[in-house]
């Protein structure tokens, strides 16, 4: 049977894109695990309250404001477009647009970190008081760490692009940075829904 198979055409190795995809999948699984722990513990807390054998109010009213988290969501979504803009620009050999788009992406990333810092100051739940607060800060902390890694990735690829490394024939590095960026940013809507909306 094997002799009937047609040999594949030789093609360019896309190692960086494959590696970044695997790393992004791993990172998403880490957040999936943390979110699952969050949801499970919250659900158990509700069962305890229903049974009248313990549990406590998850987040007291007015401790988490909607506005900062939602602004962060919009900022994160905007960065998806700027990152896609960068990939498309380098594919078209439009280096100036690619630099601008990557710079804007990093700026938006820095803005998200700034917003997280503001939001943490704004939360009315001290970190050392309860399990929900601990989960909240751990999720935000891990998100900021992952976002920091994504910003470093974009920065490295921008420096490489400035050095002339990427063009329309080979944009793998920038695509790899974009894949990791998209994965990190897509974590945020889940955190936003869990914490800002459902509280």
């Amino acid at each position, binding site marked *: 049977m094997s002799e009937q198979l047609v040999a594949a055409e030789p093609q360019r190795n896309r190692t960086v894109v*494959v*590696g970044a995809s695997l790393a992004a999948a791993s990172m998403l699984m880490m957040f999936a695990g*943390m979110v699952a*722990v969050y949801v*499970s513990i919250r659900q158990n807390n509700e069962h305890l309250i229903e049974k009248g054998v313990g549990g406590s109010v998850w987040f007291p009213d007015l401790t988490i404001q909607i506005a900062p988290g939602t602004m962060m969501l919009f900022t994160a979504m905007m960065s998806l477009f700027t990152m896609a803009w960068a990939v498309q620009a380098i594919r078209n050999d439009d280096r100036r647009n690619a630099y601008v788009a990557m710079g804007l992406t990093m700026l938006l990333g820095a803005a998200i970190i700034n917003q997280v810092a503001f939001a943490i100051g704004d939360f009315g739940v001290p970190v050392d008081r309860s399990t929900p607060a601990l989960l909240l800060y751990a999720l935000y902390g891990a998100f900021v760490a992952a976002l920091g890694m994504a910003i470093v990735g974009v920065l490295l690829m921008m420096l490489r692009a400035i050095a002339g490394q990427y063009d329309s024939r080979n944009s793998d590095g920038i695509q790899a940075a974009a894949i990791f960026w998209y994965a990190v940013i897509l974590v945020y809507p889940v955190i936003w829904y869990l914490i800002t909306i459902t509280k």
Partner: protein
Amino acid sequence: MTAAASGDALYEIIASNDHKMVGRRFIFASLLMLVGVAVVGLLSELERASLDGFGVLGNVATYIQTFAFVRAGGVLLVAMPLFIGIALVTVPLQIGAQAVAFPRLAAASFWTWLVGSGIFIASFIADGGFGPAAGTANDATLLTITSTGMVIASLLAACVCIATTVIALRPAGMTLMRVPMFSWSMLVASSVWLLSLPVLMGNLVLIFADLQGRAPIAFGDPDTIWSQVEWAFQAPQILAFAIPVLGVAADIIPVAAKVRQGQRAVVQTLIGVFGAVSFGAWAQHAFSRGIDPAFTSGNLIYEEALYALFAIAALAVAFAAFGGILDNLRRGTMPKLSMATVGAIAGLFLLLDAAAVGFVRVMPFLDALHEDQVLLSSTGSQYKFVLAAIVASAIGAIGWWSPNIFGGYAVEGLGLLAVLAALGFGVLGGLADLITAFLGQADISIASNVDDGVEALNVISSIGMLAVAVAGLALLGSAMGAFRSTETLPDDPWDGHTLEWAAPSPPPIGNFVEPVGVIESPEPLLDQLEEVS
């Protein structure tokens, strides 16, 4: 050797990014770790044999620390790095690549793993660990958590290199269905590890966050730390670390029996399915009951139907793969009994045992193995069978690929001794623990054993732990013999089927002297042999 040449050799050993050198570093370091983990395991088992007064380790906290060290260390310091080391050498050769993908990342992963492992060991010496013991030092626990994260991150980085090599660096014509079995099994294993161990990282992040600068309130509570991370060292996840056992056997046995692997696609699929059913990140107590000890309604994870389903599926798949691979012995000629063939078959046999113990654990009619709130020592039995399978399989792999890995033949006598010792570890340790589970012994046994039968079986289990230390030392000796060998080897000493035997032994930088052509079958070298004959 001149001083300059000696310096160059040392530089090569320490600083080279060549995938073969990085793989050798992983192999030698993980074998040293195996001996260390086995010695600690021996102390732990001796303590378990007679817990009156904690005469061996002094107190219950130290006993629990050594228990957790052996469970986590056996996986993170031995099993994963051992297979990663073998894969870093052989996978690029098997798929006809000039190097591993991201060679500097692979080299960095080794040094990060080594430093992380050192900190991990030091943290246990400094009274750290995963709890759950009164008296555990908070800072040292923090160090354990941090170093565990460091070790996992480094191993995952190596997995990215291996998986990317298989996915992206295959030559023209080598479809995924034509990838050699060991490389295929490493692709499956790396994928499962890359998707499951980050979940453990998530657990570690939560514990880490709770241990910062004050008394822990939830995840960092010493009484709950182990229960949050133990899923990674129990079924079904524990079986994920043994996925390459199937690939090693499926590559060695057909060549040794001089036949083409029959039903290749089926065996390849079975390896993939085994990977899927060993994905265990979902099997956490936190997902079924939460971590609050006050919350007692809902099932323990071992009582969930899905858990039983995974155990049954793992046994069925392992059994089918066992049959599919060993069928080559029936169809072909009886192979020479070498450390490679015996190790590969022993690995398969022990893996099947591990899956069978998993099956026994979830059978509802075996009431003796279902005690409320307590894990019985059948958990340890399964762990020991898996570790023994990994060690036996690694012995087979090192014996088989030693011309590629070290440029010489592994010492057969020591290799066979190592296989025998690994089998002894599995059979003595695994069976003894399974029987003590029926006698009601808990996995973490901190009460004194009143039953004489249990004590005797625990002594047998201790002998098993001694055997795995012997296996580690014998394999180290066997591998060192290959490494120091100056004998000139033929490129293909076994009439191999796959591309690694088209490279010189030992392979030079770049691996292949001539370009690898278009691949038209899973066994290109066997095709050539058949054409010639």
